[in-house]
């Protein structure tokens, strides 16, 4: 397979606009929760496998396209109300930036760990989205609200997962993005600047998502909250992610 074709293929899995639309269509059309979760984790890994096999120098337009894609989806995510779509857009905006370490010659092993640690909080979010669909028939913000009062355990987990997904310390995405800033600030400040701008947009979008779901009065109808063992499972994964983030900070920074 030619290298140009590989770059295009990689642009599907480490999503670059307009190839990114394919990933978002797949996420949107997949209804099975398990399949969705698997796609979220496997998709960027496929991208890393492909870019690891590209031997030619990357085209000059790649960095502008990476930054454009990331910013485009960071802006678009602000008005999304469907939690699953929201997750797909955030994934696109985040994973597009993985091209920067690729271009800087980061080792494949490290790229795999970047991809997995960025994907895990998104996978948790997709499963929570499924949980909302089961309980309310749709996973939409500003539709029912008041989850903090209606299903407090569920909303507690949701908040922490969103916080982890939008690259908050001490989760791995924070350190990955920090590392990209460190690596690019002196030589390519435009990359750092755009990344930081997008980081701000993700925080904004995250806050809108949280507010659209948890704030408001409690539902009059009794809704089943998340079971305690499930909360424990989420907590273990999130603690593992936080520990992984701290470990990663020692390795990459």
């Amino acid at each position, binding site marked *: 397979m030619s290298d140009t074709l590989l770059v295009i293929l990689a642009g599907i899995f480490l999503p670059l606009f307009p190839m990114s639309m394919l990933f978002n269509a797949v996420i949107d059309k997949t209804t099975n929760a398990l399949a969705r979760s698997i796609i979220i984790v496997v998709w960027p890994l496929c991208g890393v496998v492909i870019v690891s096999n590209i031997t030619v120098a990357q085209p000059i337009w790649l960095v502008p396209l990476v930054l454009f894609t990331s910013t485009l989806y960071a802006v678009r995510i602000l008005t999304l109300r469907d939690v699953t779509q929201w997750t797909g857009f955030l994934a696109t905006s985040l994973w597009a930036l993985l091209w920067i370490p690729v271009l800087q010659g980061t080792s494949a092993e490290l790229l795999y760990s970047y991809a997995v640690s960025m994907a895990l909080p998104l996978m948790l979010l997709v499963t929570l989205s499924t949980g909302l669909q089961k309980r309310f028939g749709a996973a939409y913000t500003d539709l029912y609200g008041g989850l903090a009062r209606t299903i407090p355990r569920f909303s507690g987990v949701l908040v922490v997962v969103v916080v982890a997904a939008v690259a908050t310390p001490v989760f791995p995405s924070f350190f990955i993005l920090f590392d990209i800033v460190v690596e690019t600030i*002196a030589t390519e400040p435009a990359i750092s600047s755009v990344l930081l701008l997008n980081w701000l947009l993700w925080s904004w979008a995250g806050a809108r998502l949280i*507010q659209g779901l948890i704030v*408001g009065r409690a539902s009059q109808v009794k809704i089943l909250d998340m079971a305690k063992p499930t909360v424990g499972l989420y907590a273990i994964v999130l603690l593992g992610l936080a520990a992984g983030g701290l470990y990663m900070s020692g390795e990459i920074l």
Partner: protein
Amino acid sequence: MERLIITVAVLPLISALFIQLFAGQFGRSIVKVSVAVTTIGFLLSLVALGVALMGNDPVAMSMTGDKGIILFDPLGTLLAAIIMGISLIVHLYSVRYMAEEEAYGQFFVLLDLMTAALLFMVVAGDLITLVISWYLVGVLLYFLLGQDTRSQTAYRFAFWTLITYRVGDLPLILAAALLFNAYDTWSLTTIFAEISANPYTHQIFGLPLTEVVAVLIGLAAFARSAQFLLHTWLPYTMDGPTPVSALMHAGIVNAGGFLINRFAPVFVHSGDVLNWIFIVGLITAIFGSLLMLTQNDIKKALGYSTMGQMGFMIMECGIGAFSLAIYHMFAHGVFKGTMFLSAGGVINDARHDDGIPKDELYTFAVEKQPNKARQPWLLMAAITLVVPLVILVLAHLLIAQDYFQKQGAVVLLFFGWVTGAQLIFATYRMRSQNIWRLVGLSVLSLVVVVLGYVFISHAFDLFLYPDEAFRAQLYAAASFDLLRFDVLVVVTTLIIVFGWLMTYYSEQNGYRRTQSSRRLWLNFYALISREFYVSDIYTRLTRTILALSGRLNVWLRWL
């Protein structure tokens, strides 16, 4: 000793974890654990401060190489004690105040996490720990302000705080990345040592690295300390619980002053940046005070009062009086914390008895019975202008003979003079029956305040910056061009004196205004009552971005 500081920082984390895990078993009484742990932490922080006061050298303890460093230095230990003290008061207050809340335990978890984040922030000895804790303070504050999950308004304004704090996080991240690139270490002590040895070795984008970093640190501090244009979140975040307001106004908002102090070895080589910091602080102090005076809502007035104080604090940094900013932070924290926490009690007491003594102030302010006879205004004007100046000069001469060689000192004297003069001026305007008694009390209180301020700020100076040469360097770095400085002082003096004269004139003429001056005044009032349209501009900008986002989604079929 290092273990002591680490214990202080880790205790709130343990408490938070304990409450989170065992709240179900122990019920609401579990918050006593949080109070007990905070009390122990406060006592330990006082011990650490005592050791630091005895003159021990700063100690750094690292967890992994040049990351995860806890720095035991005067600034860190002093602020750790202040944070623990304020946190303890807020904890004690919250035990009853928040008792009706559904998420009672969760509130204490957040409070403990916030205490831990603040502690790690002030004792951070490396850039990574500093950035992480700095960032987390903003995130935790968002959730503390949104404690009432039923209130859309609380979350709306909590979001303003979050986004402003995030704006402030970005320059700090950039500064950290630039410093690491230049010095290949995250350790603040090492970086500062290298900067002190060779301040202008590194350049970035054709500018000295120290100046670029100083600008970025300044921006981060501005966002955190609500400087003008980054201030809109502060007056509007009153929908959060009162203990959170107290914690925010007494502690968190002061973080800008801390950050500038932490990076003092960078600022000492960035004189121009300090000049700009002074101007931003000055503008904030003026705008904050102006907006405070024109608010109808008492809570917003308090918010703008804090903004004005933050302006003064940043201004103090801008004139090289770094340690004074820390003293200001402490004094303002205690003052504002007391105001917030006692507000509920005062309202409750006032329902039974207003408690206002029927003295001269009451006669003047409430019963509107001013004395018709007045003292000669020329005599009073002379007292107004001269007495505060004499008090300030004498007090400062007690500290150091060469004090007036420093521009920063002159600026502080100037503000002290303005404040004192304003006090006597206001006393004159009260038309008291016994004017000399009130003037005497005003002068006495001014003497007490000035002497207290001079001696305590000097003590802070000696404790935080024991190296006299470094202190002199800081003042020198903050110096303005002499001509510009003199012009600034003279113009400001003239404006203030003109303001007083105009007030005298207006009073003499019974506040009569011409048509044009009335229109001008109304326009000015409209401008202030709309808070200079800053919030409106941000709201418009926000709506534009959201509209663009929605339009893009429609065009691209939500894919």
